[in-house]
């Protein structure tokens, strides 16, 4: 079983990274969106390997089933032909590349410097099989306030979205 899990982890990881790269390199923005969906689904698969069932399903429902639908709608609202004809990499690509390299170096350094902290405590042998209930327990005990604040955040998002879209319509 362990080998299978290992294999699955590698499969999802490679799929996630590969489709992420394909996502940014595709000229066709709809193809890009499809690859982004693949990335998100692979990430969901990794959540599942970590026995985070609820998180897995949240990833699928919210990111793949919700936010990506929004993305696709936006893609269909813009005129694709124009963006297809635009030059994909503009002249500042080398500046961007250099910056990306610097960033990568920083990340690597940070990981190397703090590698001791990455040793997470070993997981308990018995993980509660009722993952959703565990989330609920946490949500309604320790994280009550953030939970309520989330609703305010959603309210703000709702109002913001409508105000912006209405301006666009008007």
């Amino acid at each position, binding site marked *: 079983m362990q080998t299978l899990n290992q294999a699955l982890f590698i499969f999802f990881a490679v799929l996630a990274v590969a489709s992420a790269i394909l996502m940014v390199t595709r000229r*066709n923005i709809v193809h890009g969106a499809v690859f982004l969906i693949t990335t998100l689904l692979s990430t969901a698969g990794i959540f599942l390997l970590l026995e985070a069932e609820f998180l*897995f399903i949240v990833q*699928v*429902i919210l990111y*793949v089933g919700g936010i990506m639908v929004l993305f696709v709608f936006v893609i*269909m609202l813009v005129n694709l032909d124009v963006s297809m004809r635009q030059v994909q990499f503009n002249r500042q690509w080398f500046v961007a590349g250099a910056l990306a390299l610097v960033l990568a170096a920083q990340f690597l350094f940070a990981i190397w410097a703090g590698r001791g902290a990455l040793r997470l405590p070993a997981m308990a042998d018995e993980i509660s099989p009722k*993952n959703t209930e565990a989330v609920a327990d946490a949500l309604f005990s320790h994280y009550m306030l953030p939970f309520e604040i989330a609703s305010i955040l959603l309210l703000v998002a709702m109002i913001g979205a409508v105000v912006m879209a209405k301006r666009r319509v008007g």
Partner: protein
Amino acid sequence: MGHLIPPSIMPYVLPVLYAVVIVAVLPLLAGYIVLMERKVMADMQARLGPMRVGPHGLLQPIADAVKLLLKEDIIPDKADRLMFWFAPLVSVTMALLAYSALAIGPAFQIADLNIGLLFILAVSSLGIYGIVLGGWASNSHYSLLGALRSAAQLVSYETAAGLGLISVLLLAGSLSMKDIVQAQSDQGVWFGFSVPFGFFIYLVGSIAETNRAPCDLPEAESELVAGYMTEYSGFRWSLYFLAEYANMIIVAGIATTLFLGGWLRPGARYHEHIPGTGIEWLDALPALLTLGVALYSLKLAPQQPVKIQKIVMGLVAVLCLGIAGILAGALFAPAGVMQGIHGAFWFMAKVFAYIYAFLWIRFTFPRYRFDQLMRLGWRFLIPLALVNVIGVGVAIVLRQQFAWGPIVSLIPTTLATLGVAMLLAKDDAPVSEAQTADGE
């Protein structure tokens, strides 16, 4: 046989077997639901429906399948070939994948997930990409308009239907399909009766989610020709069709599990035995019903016009007789086997009843207009669902605090929700131009 399979793989053998059976049987089932639809439609419209292929059109689905498989395969010139190929596959795969958590009776389930219901909802909601990408790939006005409509409709009603389901989860306390049915068994009432508004919201939501009339706007043939499927033909088209019917069975399955007691037998408290045996009357009912169908087909067989049709009708009778035999045999089998087989029977019976309701609605009502449909979703169903959830929550607290009976506590809630529903329906009148301008 047992020693051939390593013990570590043993628990997976049965689920994988079901998986194979579902993939093999589902397309056939979808075909026969189409036949059922055509026959029901014909009956309601004072005509006969398919009668030529096989006795009473019984072989029509097979003829259709062969035709569709062999039809010319057209990909329009301007289409995005990759996406055009990929999109119907997404639709079908997601529709099929949703079956993995569905419990068809206590024994037939690929996997009993803790998040079973959410898994089904999540996977079936991904089918939207098949539609949107297919419509986009076709590069036709009708297709894209249909696809966008479809996506907007699906997401709107997904929210409403999801909120409708929450009221059941409050009562059941689990997302596992098996536990939800078990909860109905324990509480002695189907949740459809405890939370009628949850059921109503889900019924409307599921009609819209499966693009059935009166909410079949994405493929409204009188406006958008065939919506997102306009450019599809032959086998690719039939894949979409398969996905649509598979989704119908899925939503019927969810509704059956959550609101209609899943595989539970109706009249669970009725225990009258057939004299002289330990068999209850209602347990004998499935076998008797199928026996009746078998005898009826046997009676019809000699009346068929052609010899081959006589034979086919006879085979149908034999098939029904076989099923009746299995159902009858199950009565004398150990309790587990008996529940498995009869559970599957009752589950399928309820699923078909639900689908029949779909068809009935389809042939009775005209089609909504898109803005009306969206208004129904956003301005009627969603607020109603929220009120319903809160109402059920209050009812449960009341029950816990004052030890009221499960039904008693839900009656005031249901009445309150009914009031809200009427209030919302009253407000559902079209908004005048002046009001819209005011809102800007």
